[in-house]
Each structure stands twice: as structure tokens, then as C-alpha cells.
């Protein structure tokens, strides 16, 4: 077969030009699609509220209500609480990513992108990049407010630099899993329910808001071992003055690597399904 398009009669960029350049450029695609999501997010008041206002409200409320009783237990609550609120922010980011991924699958956007010269993984990576940018903005706000309430990095500037790194690593792992979830379920109310059912037990049965020692003894092993507590341990090691770093970072790192793999495998399988 020697079929070819009648390129000579066309206005605009000739179709031949497209054919010479069929290789998708992953970096460009991801950047362009991340820009799309950021622009869409900035126009949705609900998304700004869930990214910035809600974590802030939670932080302020927990701090206000529990700081006295915590101090009685010998804990400076703002130092203890901030990593928890950062983790919570990442969860909210994940929930938003799951919804946006499901919306793109439902609206036909994904289908359309797959029929274009766009890298296969770019839609998921673009969303991930946008959500990570959003979570960094939230982190900035939380750190500023936290500082006003007395939060300090007691371990010096180098450990402080590790803090956002761990948060972004957690974000990458958790958001990838949530994107996989959104692409796999593809029904908005079911996605909301599923993400809440993950969020509440993992967040509240962890040492994020209160030390594991406050839990009933039979729950304690679970609370201490689960990934959210491990990430909280790593974040706290980075804010404390003289905590051992290697062990908490390694354990958290192992968990995050596992989660990330889970998310990547899940998202790859879900994105390949016909819409």
C-alpha cells in the first residue's frame, strides 16, 4: 500500500510535518498537562479551599483544642502537630487527584489524549506534577502559620531541607496510588467514598495526631507500624533537635517505595483499559 494524504492541497501545517515527528516528548507533554490542571484548579474555589483552607482550619482547631492537654503529657503540640497536618494535606491532595483522574476518564479527555501523539503516561504524570505543586503551596502556608504559632525546625537548616523532600516523596507515592484508584473506579461518588475510607483509618489510627502510647495496648503495634506513622516519624526526626535520622528515614523510604510501586502498577493497568 502506498497511501498518502494529499498534502499539497492543505493549508496550515501540512500533515506530513506531523508524521515526521511522531515521537511524543514526555517532558513537554507532562508540563503542558500539569499546566492544564493547575489552571483548572485555580478556577475551582472548592479545590483552593481543600488545598489551603481546610488543612489550615484543621491545624488551628487541633492546636487550639488539644495543646493544653498535650502539654500536660509533656508534648509541645505545635511541633508535634505540624507533621500531622502536612500528612493530612497530602491526603487531601490525593483525594483531589483521584477525583480529577476519574473526571478525565469519564469526560473522554483520556480517550482523546490516547488517540493523539501524547506519551501514554503523560496524563497521569501531569496530574501528579500539578498536585505536587499545589501541595508545596499548601506546605508554604502551613509552615508560615506554624511558625507564627511557635513551630521551629530544631535540627538546623539541613534537616529542615529534608522536610519538604520527605513530604514530596510521600505525596508522589500517595497521589500515584490515588490516581490509580480514580482511574480504576471511574465513578465520582464511589471515588469519594473510597478515598474517605482510606483516609480516616490511616490518618486517625496513626501516631500523627497523638503518640502511639495513648492508644489501647492491643492497637499500639498496628498504630506504630503503619505507613502514615512511619512517615510522621521521619518528618519528626527532621524537625527534632537530636533525633536519630537514618532509621526512621529508611523505614519511611521503604514504605514509600512500596506504595509508589503499587500506584505505578495500578495506574498503568487502569490507564490502559478501554474507556
Amino acid at each position, binding site marked *: 500500500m502506498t497511501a*498518502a*494524504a*494529499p498534502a499539497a492541497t492543505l493549508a496550515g501545517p501540512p500533515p506530513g510535518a506531523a508524521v515526521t515527528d511522531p515521537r511524543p516528548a514526555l517532558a513537554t507533554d507532562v508540563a503542558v498537562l500539569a499546566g492544564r490542571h493547575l489552571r483548572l484548579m485555580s478556577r475551582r474555589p472548592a479545590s483552593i479551599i481543600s488545598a489551603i483552607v481546610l488543612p489550615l482550619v484543621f491545624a488551628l482547631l487541633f492546636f487550639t483544642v488539644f495543646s493544653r492537654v498535650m502539654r500536660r503529657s509533656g508534648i509541645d503540640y505545635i511541633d508535634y502537630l505540624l507533621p500531622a497536618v502536612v500528612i493530612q494535606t497530602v491526603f487531601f491532595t490525593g483525594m483531589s487527584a483521584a477525583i480529577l483522574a476519574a473526571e478525565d476518564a469519564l469526560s473522554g479527555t483520556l480517550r*482523546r489524549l490516547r488517540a*493523539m501523539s501524547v506519551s501514554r503516561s503523560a496524563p497521569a504524570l501531569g496530574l501528579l506534577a500539578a498536585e505536587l505543586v499545589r501541595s508545596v503551596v499548601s506546605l508554604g502556608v502551613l509552615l508560615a502559620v506554624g511558625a507564627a504559632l511557635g513551630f521551629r525546625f530544631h535540627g538546623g537548616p539541613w534537616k529542615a531541607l529534608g522536610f519538604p523532600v520527605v513530604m514530596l516523596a510521600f505525596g508522589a507515592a500517595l497521589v500515584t496510588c490515588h490516581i490509580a484508584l480514580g482511574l480504576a*473506579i471511574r465513578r465520582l461518588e464511589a471515588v469519594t467514598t473510597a478515598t474517605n475510607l482510606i483516609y480516616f483509618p490511616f490518618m486517625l489510627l496513626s501516631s500523627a495526631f497523638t503518640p502511639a502510647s495513648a492508644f489501647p495496648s492491643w492497637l499500639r503495634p498496628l498504630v506504630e507500624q503503619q505507613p502514615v506513622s512511619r512517615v510522621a516519624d521521619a518528618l519528626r526526626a527532621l524537625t527534632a533537635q537530636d533525633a536519630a535520622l537514618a532509621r526512621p528515614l529508611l523505614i519511611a523510604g521503604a514504605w514509600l517505595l512500596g506504595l509508589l510501586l503499587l500506584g505505578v502498577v495500578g495506574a498503568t493497568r487502569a490507564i490502559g483499559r*478501554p474507556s
Partner: protein
Amino acid sequence: MTAAVEADALVKTFGDIRALDGLSLRVEAGTILGLLGPNGAGKTTAINVLTTLLRPDSGHARVAGHDVVDEPALVRASIGVTGQFASLDAGLTPRENLVLFGRLMKLGRAEARRRAAELLERFALTEAADQRTGTLSGGTRRRLDLAASITREPAVLFLDEPTTGLDPRSRLALWQAVRELRASGITILLTTQYLEEADELADRVTIIDRGKVVAEGTAAQLKQRVGGAVCHITIADPTDRQLVADALTSLGPVSLTSDGVSLPASGPETLVAVVRQLDEARHGGLPIAQVDDIGLRRPTLDDVFLALTGHSAAPEAGAGDEVERLARPAAEVAS
């Protein structure tokens, strides 16, 4: 002539449903092919295979000279796709949507912006250019969708039911836009449930049913296959339709349509015979209340469809919609 799209014996099954059952079709470069069929006939599956979204179980297809299975990247670089569901971002403006598509099609930033402006102009979207897409009318959004799919002019454009749900005026405007695209040399494969649409736009028509081609040709050729003229009697009341059909059986095979009954006509004498027959029936005491119109007409594609497939092309309530069928596995995973 060379073929811009060529499919040969495509088979695709979902579970025990044969969505494509040896489908073959051909679209000559620079022409419009109308792919017709009722819900569930395999139209959307065919588009999905030709646009590299689905891998066929067997068979081959080449689009713009490239094999859809072996060279999907080259195919994607040569095609544009407009879905039934206009999948543009409601929260972005038309201009932003077009720039986004331009960037994804690897136009530089400035080039994407220039191209977006050009397309807005060309598709009469300049007035709406900077409003949120979600606030625009259905017809405007479809035009934008069409513009987005040719951001980088494709060799082949797939239009999957481009006017479903549009009002008549928006449909006319979209048809005009499609004609202009063909005039610029783009090959178009159009699926539709509206036979009138294929009649208006398509150079050739392929009718499929249950995953197979049942007829192929120009609209005129297909109409000829049904035979000469049709006598159509328009009757508002469905009960009366049945009575009239019964009264006319002696004149030939009478079929019930959505607005009356029709039968094959040999010429004006059929008209006379029908009037006479109805008059006799009425004198014989048949309570026929109201015949609104009697006339001769050339067969429409609807008649063709009815003759070839035994059922009407109009969407039926409850008929398994193809898109729905494809979406079902997803729902099952979730529940």
C-alpha cells in the same frame, strides 16, 4: 485514487459479543465516508480500532498509510478525533483549550497561540473565545471540538456522531464546517445515526450492522437498491395507521413508519389505487378518522436501512448502547 483508511476483516470481541465481525471498509483520500448503523452495530468499536485505542483480535487496518497495530505512533500523528462527548475542558476558555491542544501536538508556544487565533477565526468562535467553555451552547462547543481536532491539520479526521443532540441550526453550521474541512483536503470518516446527515455530507456510505458491512455505495446507489419511488401516507393516529395498512395489503408490501405507512410505488397510478382503496374501505364501514397526506417520494436512507437490516436506524429506547457496553466492565470492577 488511494485509500486514506483501509480496514480488512477486522474482528473484535468483548466477552461473547462480537462487536466487529470481519469488518472491511475503505475511505478514499480527500473524501468523506459515512459509517452508518444502529446502536450497537459496532461503529464506535470500529473508530476505536482505527484510532489505535483498541487492538483488533484479528484483521488489519491502515490509516494514512500506517498500520494501526504496528505503527500506532505514526497513525496518532496523522489523525484527529472528535468524540460523541465533546471532551474539552469546561473550565478553560476556547482559546486556552486550543492552545493546550496545539502544545500537546508539539507546536511551539507562540505557534500554538497563533494557530488557536486562526482556528477561532475560521470556526466563527472569536466572540466566545475568552468565555468559559462550559457556558457555551452545545453547537458552539462542537465547533470548538472540531477546531481542536485539526489543530495540527490531520490527514484523516474521525468524527464520531458529531451532531448528536444538536438543534437544527447548529447542525447546519457544523455540516458547513465539515464540508470546508473536506475542501481543504482532509479525509473524513464520519459515524452518525442520522441518515440525513450522511446524505448531506458523505461521498460514500457504508452501512454496518452487528459488526459487519451490509451495504456500501453512494447514497444514490443505495437508494436505487431499494427500488423506485415510495408511496407514503401520513397518518397521525397509530391505530388508524394499522387500519390503513390492513386496507392496503392488496397493493403490495406495506410497512409502518413512525408517522404513517408506506409501500413501493410503480408511478402515479399507485396514488390513484391507494385513494380508491381507502375510499372503498371507508364506504365499507372502516372508521378511518384522518389521513393527513398522501404522496410519492424518492426513497430515503431510512428506507434503505429498513430494507437492508430489517430495523429502523432511529435510536431505540433500551437498545444496548455501544459506549455503555464498553463502559460496563469498569463499573463491574468498581462494585
